[in-house]
């Protein structure tokens, strides 16, 4: 049903339509509205046969989901940022145990300095956790991806993270076609695990596996993600047939036909990039965009195919690996191994810094002339960081960078004693 609705509420309704049996939640912005919506539905009795557990931490949230899922219940939780990091041990455990939990990550920066706004540092930190990671471009896609996520998760017995940009998507009101209960019921069969905690058929789950079988277990985790490379497009196609909408899949090309420059990105920024690409195409620039929906598994083949004709790729990412540079771009480089394609990494939108069309125009034009540095921080205040670096060179006093910058610009209060 078409609705003017907040992204979080659309997601909450889609999750509810998937008939979760256990939802556990701990508050952290910008994820809160989703679970608030779900808690209301459970309490009001519109979402039945579902337990909503208000836990004491994100670590407990994922742990409750683990127990519920191992006992055969469809389990859901949502988090972001510090909350995702706080649950990390359980995040890895859920995938290691092969439990098809679905979790929304309302992408947000990681502190220090504490910052509640959007970037992808949180989800990217979990790229090797064994979870499938799907990134939504729009609220419609975020909504649809949750329905697909349960199907993919339960089919493969792997947990799925649906990543949606915090605030930009979670808090935006727009028109969303929210899946109807009957449609979802027809699309998503009930969860029937092969192995479950059942007194009638007792099994021990989670034993200590030594060197004799550990490699095999890890290999199978990888192999299952490789199977997901086939399943994800299939589920997306089935979804289109059932709901009449294009959502999900591995990658999302836009005007890449014959494009010399292909911009690669994840999430909601794709909308702005498409606008810029349209404008540049109108001016005759040979440029296109490739959105990556499935970051884990990483669609190497699909990328290689999509980028076959490109001279250069500009990977615009909302996170980076301190000490080396791009995360997405190094994955893209793996896809392009052996190809002469130039690869530029642009780190943008950290901690919610707006990514404007003007900056993107300048950036893509520079890229088109191959004048970009291998690693660019978009809209960085060079003057500020140069001053700080100069001081550090002169005086190696350590301490937190944010507070040091304040001291250097004279914005620190007088000494009290």
């Amino acid at each position: 049903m078409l609705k003017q609705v907040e992204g979080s509420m659309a997601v909450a309704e889609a999750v509810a339509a998937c008939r979760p049996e256990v939802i556990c939640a701990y508050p952290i912005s910008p994820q809160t509205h989703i679970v608030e919506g779900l808690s209301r539905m459970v309490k009001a009795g519109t979402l039945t046969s579902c337990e909503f557990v208000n836990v004491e931490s994100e670590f407990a949230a994922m742990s409750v989901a683990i127990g519920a899922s191992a006992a055969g219940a469809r389990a859901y939780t949502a988090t972001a940022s510090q909350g995702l990091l706080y649950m990390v041990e359980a995040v890895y455990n859920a995938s290691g145990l092969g439990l098809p939990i679905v979790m929304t990550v309302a992408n947000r920066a990681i502190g220090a300095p504490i910052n509640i706004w959007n970037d992808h540092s949180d989800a990217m930190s979990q790229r090797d956790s064994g979870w499938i990671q799907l990134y939504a471009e729009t609220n419609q896609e975020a909504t649809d991806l949750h329905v697909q996520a349960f199907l993919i998760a339960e089919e493969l017995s792997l947990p799925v993270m649906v990543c949606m940009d915090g605030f930009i998507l979670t808090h935006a009101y727009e028109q969303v076609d929210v899946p109807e209960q009957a449609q979802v019921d027809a699309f998503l069969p009930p969860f029937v695990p092969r192995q479950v905690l059942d007194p009638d058929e007792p099994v021990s789950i989670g034993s200590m596996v030594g060197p004799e079988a550990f490699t095999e277990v890890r290999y199978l985790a990888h192999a299952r993600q490789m199977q997901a490379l086939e399943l994800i497009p299939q589920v997306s196609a089935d979804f289109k047939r059932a709901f009449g909408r294009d959502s999900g899949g591995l990658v999302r090309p836009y005007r890449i036909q014959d494009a010399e420059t292909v911009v690669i990105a994840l999430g909601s920024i794709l909308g702005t990039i498409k606008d810029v690409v349209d404008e540049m195409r109108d001016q005759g620039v040979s440029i296109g965009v490739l959105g990556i929906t499935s970051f884990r598994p990483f669609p190497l083949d699909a990328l290689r195919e999509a980028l076959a004709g490109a001279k250069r790729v500009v990977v615009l990412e909302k996170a980076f690996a301190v000490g080396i540079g791009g995360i997405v771009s190094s994955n893209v480089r793996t896809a392009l191994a052996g190809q002469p394609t130039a690869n530029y990494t642009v780190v943008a939108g950290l901690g919610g810094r707006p990514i404007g069309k003007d900056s993107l125009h300048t950036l893509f034009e520079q890229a088109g002339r191959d004048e970009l540095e291998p690693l660019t921080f978009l809209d960085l205040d060079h003057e500020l960081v140069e001053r700080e670096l100069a001081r550090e060179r002169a005086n190696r006093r350590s301490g937190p960078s944010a507070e040091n910058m304040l001291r250097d610009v004279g914005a620190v209060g007088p000494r009290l004693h």
Partner: protein
Amino acid sequence: MGAVPVKFYQVGSFAVGNRLLDPDLASVQSDPERANSLTSGHRACQGCGEALGARYALDAIMRATKGQMIAVNATGCLEVFSTPYPETSWRLPWLHSLFGNAPAVATGVAAAMHAKGRDDIRVVGQGGDGGTVDIGFACLSGMFERNDDVLYICYDNQAYMNTGVQRSGATPPAARTATTQTVGPEPGNVFGQGKDVPRIAMAHEIPYVATATVADLRDLEAKATRAMEFRGARYLHVLVPCPLGWGSASCDTIKVARLATQSGLFPVFEAVNGEVTSSTKIRHQVPVEEYLKLQSRYAHLFRPTRRDDVIKKLQAMADRNIERYGLLEPELAPAVPAAMSNEPVEVA
């Protein structure tokens, strides 16, 4: 026919032969049909109190729930010695997730059962003292506070045994562990306030809290059984000597546990809705020294010089417990079925 008082003659251990008892009062372990939840072949050390305690507690719960139960285990000795892949000693549905999350995982299982309308299936979480009083404490307190329908059992061997006997929040003062070694002017663990989780559990006013030891296995069975009569969060704290970590003889596990109770160092009691309802009285009070002497983790209190000052402080802790729980007061009502005491029993 009137009741005839019968005196059970004892061998000094307070044990009563099961064959003399009404089948309902006989121990679960004497039942050939018992579940054997933690069956033989596991790799616990000889004389492991934890293996013994777990078997008695879980078999009693299996009987109380007619086999309709699921166990969730924290990382620790109990988990490691019972499930070396591909083997398992568990004859019940069992899940191990992590070290610090067993109470929350148990909550998840209970929530799943409730959502599925299977409230007949009961959930038990269990872990060592480290997993319970330290790293799992937030999850435990959350589970208590929400009054989730879970029985959590802590097997307290007073240190992180699985990693090689390091100090936990349940390690008693003066005890030697690998991280509180017997060097310096005050060897062994520091004298702090200790973390008394049974009392903290009571402060949550959960329906049922009890302590037990492997010295009185009938009492442990009775409490595990009683715990299943309640719904909501329940907590059972079981003292389980660890020969390896305590430096006691494998054959002395029961004796050491008994001396812990008879000295007053480990009070055995039950609490309902946050109020102590009964305590197990000391029958033959012993000075703490009797208990300490059997364990090499306290050897530095006796050699090379006697540390009467430290022993006195430990005695003061025992005396505090004796006073707080009335451990030397005359028994008012039996804490456990009369058949388990050595008082004359009315046999019909």
